């Protein structure tokens, strides 16, 4: 029995679409028949998020993206993040699962005093996808908050939130004073608040990790986006105990990354 003689193409498409993008790429190697099915739009449309058309239409990307074959579109979105929500958010797909992966830019966060030039300034850095990132000049209390509607994200997915930042050479206030990081879904009990030092001295462990794009990231927390997702998830970073001056932090945004499952 050869499967392509038993099953019609659209059944095979369905089966492939129920595996994974990686498996689908492998299956294009199986035989002539599988090659065309595994690369087809029928399959790859299933790997794209349900609302991909809406996301792309409301982004800064050219609409010609939508005329790409779906497999090409999938990988384009994996490797070339697009700006959505008026340039406030950066969107891409997590390659293994096709889940939505967002970064909320600094502009979309609520940063206390951010519009007061004495305290914060908006600058443009070449290694950020966003037009502007926020640079701290001087505050005593640091408060950065953000929130995202859960229905923006992929459902039935575990997400990790990361604070993406840099520290310039001329900085102070972060070496010995920890900041408090918190992620919670509105309406549920607050998750654990993490206390981390953003700029530890050399002999202390560095909790922030360096990213591929040259920025630092530190995990704020995790949350699970279930199916009834008409709520919002809220993030906050705070240092409001010691009232000591702080300076030299550059904020790119908060990244919401689908957690990579190791076992399927």
């Amino acid at each position, binding site marked *: 029995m050869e499967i392509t003689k038993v*099953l019609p193409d659209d*059944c095979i498409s369905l089966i492939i679409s129920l595996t994974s993008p990686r498996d689908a*790429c492998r299956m294009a190697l199986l035989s002539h028949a599988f090659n065309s099915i595994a690369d087809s739009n029928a399959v790859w449309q299933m790997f794209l998020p349900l609302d991909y058309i809406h996301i792309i239409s409301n982004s800064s990307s050219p609409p010609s993206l939508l005329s790409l074959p779906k497999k090409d579109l999938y990988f384009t979105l994996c*490797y070339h*993040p697009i700006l959505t929500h008026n340039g406030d958010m950066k969107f891409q797909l997590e390659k293994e699962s096709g889940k939505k992966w967002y970064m909320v830019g600094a502009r979309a966060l609520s940063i206390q005093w951010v519009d007061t030039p004495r305290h914060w300034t908006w600058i443009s850095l070449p290694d950020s996808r966003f037009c502007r990132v926020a640079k701290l000049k001087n505050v005593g209390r640091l408060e950065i908050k953000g929130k995202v509607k859960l229905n923006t994200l992929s459902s039935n997915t575990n997400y990790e939130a990361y604070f993406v930042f840099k520290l310039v050479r001329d900085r102070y206030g972060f070496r010995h004073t920890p900041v408090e990081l918190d992620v919670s879904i509105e309406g549920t009990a607050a998750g654990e608040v993490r206390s981390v030092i953003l700029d530890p001295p050399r002999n202390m462990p560095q909790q922030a990790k360096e*990213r*591929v794009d040259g920025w630092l990231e530190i995990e704020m927390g995790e949350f699970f986006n279930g199916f009834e997702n008409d709520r919002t998830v809220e993030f906050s970073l705070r240092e409001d105990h010691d009232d000591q001056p702080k300076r030299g932090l550059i904020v790119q945004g908060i990244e919401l990354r689908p957690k990579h499952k190791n076992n399927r």
Partner: protein
Amino acid sequence: MSEVDMAVIKPEMMKSYIWLQTADGSIQQVEQEVAMFCPMICHEVIQKGMGSSKNYAISLPQRVNPAMLSLILDYCRFHQVPGRSNKERKSFDEKFIRMDTKRLCELTSAADSLQLKPLVDLTSRALARIIEGKSPEEIREIFHLPDDLTEEEKLEPLKNTTDDPRIRLLNRLYAKKRKELKERQKLKNIEVEEERVDDRSVDDLLSFINGDNGDSKGIKNSKSKKKNRRRKDQQKNTSANEAIKNHNKEPNGLNQVCCSAEVGQTVRAGVGATSNLHDVEDDIFDNKNELDDGDIDDEIDPALKEKIDRYCSYELRKSSKLTVSNEVTMEVEDFARRLNSDWPERMQEILSFGHERKPVHFSLNGNGSLRRYANSEQR
């Protein structure tokens, strides 16, 4: 039962039956509520008034043989009962699909022809679970598929290109850098293997892989590696270019430049060329970006050769425990940062070029010169 008895008893019989005929000619009657669970049968009864008697039995599609029909009716019989809990249904489903793969395929096909979507979904998921994570070879065995793609066709994803001149410039710059690094490495290296491997042509490799199994494992490994190298190099270049372009990216980008473990493992496998092929597809998945590989015109061929050479020297570096990958990474990051400023503009440019697919014809002769790849019917 005689006809007379039937006439008397019939009004008291609450059950009504639908008559179905399978392609082999056999006819059976099935309880109405069970049969009507299938949309196709439902349609025949309601729209065409069929199925009410033996003479007007509904002809089922050819894909539904008596064995499959029996299974399908079991499914319908269970699920058409309204009072069952989700847990019960799930439990039934799990037991129901426990059958060999061949039957699962036939059942999917039969259910599909009867438009019984819940069962199609159930069996499809089961089949998906069977094939996910498996290598192409394993899947071919399960489904009895012929391995009828030529080598070139299997490499097709690697050849997808764009005409963006900036990408090509990047490729050249990158190739130059790699060459420099390679030169440095060559000076440090005294391995003989490099020469030996360069002597083989692609066609030789293919004929070896597909025909002759008598060689010792050692030689076979190097030949497989060589063939793989060609592909992997393309991958490398693609991934390197990608890394240049994707400054902002998730960890994948530069990991590939750093000659990811996957590639290394593949080459080390040396079990047989075919097993390396599906890892190629994995690499394609990892490095997949059809917009990147700009090596399409003739003047790039030397760069291609450099890639191949570079991969050879990568092999050597690996074996001599030298890591150039960090240097390479930094170069790439450097490029990335310098280019980042006009990223959105570049994106626009890339996307507006569309996707021109030009086949790359290449192969490496023993003396290092390039010749057109002969599309033989080897596997």
